[in-house]
């Protein structure tokens, strides 16, 4: 499962790279857990983080649905705004 914990113990992080355009910016790094490795993606704007394992990354790479990203964006926007509303 994709890990969302920000528990930093036992994690070794390689130098991060930034991927940005005029619409967003993310920090990406490879992280080493005691027994394996993950790709960590962090959104500084939304203060959210995800750590994806190789199989998850493989399925993203192999996804051939053009609207994959589009539908994720919609779902992500809706989740975020619902969460904010719930928090109030």
């Amino acid at each position, binding site marked *: 499962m994709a890990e969302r914990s920000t528990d930093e113990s036992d994690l070794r992080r390689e130098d991060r790279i*930034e991927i*940005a*355009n*005029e619409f967003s*910016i993310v920090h990406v790094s490879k992280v080493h857990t005691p027994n394996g490795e993950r790709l960590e993606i962090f959104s500084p704007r939304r203060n959210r983080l995800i750590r994806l394992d190789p199989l998850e990354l493989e399925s993203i790479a192999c996804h051939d649905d053009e609207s994959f990203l589009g539908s994720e964006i919609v779902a992500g926007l809706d989740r975020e705004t619902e969460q904010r509303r719930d928090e109030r």
Partner: protein
Amino acid sequence: MSTETETATRTEEARIPSGSPEYWRCVDFLLDEAAALDGNRFEDWLGMLHPEIDYRAPIRVTRERAAGPGFSSEGYHFLENRDSLQTRVDRLATDFAWAEDPPSRTRRFLTNFRVCSVEETDDLRVRSNMLLYRERLDETRQQLLVGKREDDLRELDGALRLVRRLVLLDHSILMTPNLGIFL
């Protein structure tokens, strides 16, 4: 996109204190150079250039913050050497350089001087802000060229000469109809 960034200093540079004799020597040189250009004394100006001068002003486009200031790595308004600058001056001296006859009235304002020495050379690097006001004929349209200069000065025969000029303009679309003047 370009690596020309708005750094205060780069790792190979050491800051020279403002107000020191070296600082003033550099500033005086640039002020004299500006006076020569504003006075249309182009032969004098050419005499202040090093034979190996690299003179450039990259084209700029608006980029998002993360992508940097947006200077092109290959596109230039000016990409000149001593010969091409000499040719430009020669052209102005003919009777047919209409763009600059009658000549523009210009006034160069230089401020924000920061002087550094450059590692492994004896060159002095000066960063300054430039505001170039220009008026032509009876036009009241404002023509400004604003930007930052990065100039390298090198001694030749006992005097400082300009060996490198990089002009980083604040414009993505130039508001002057031509660049018949030197930055």
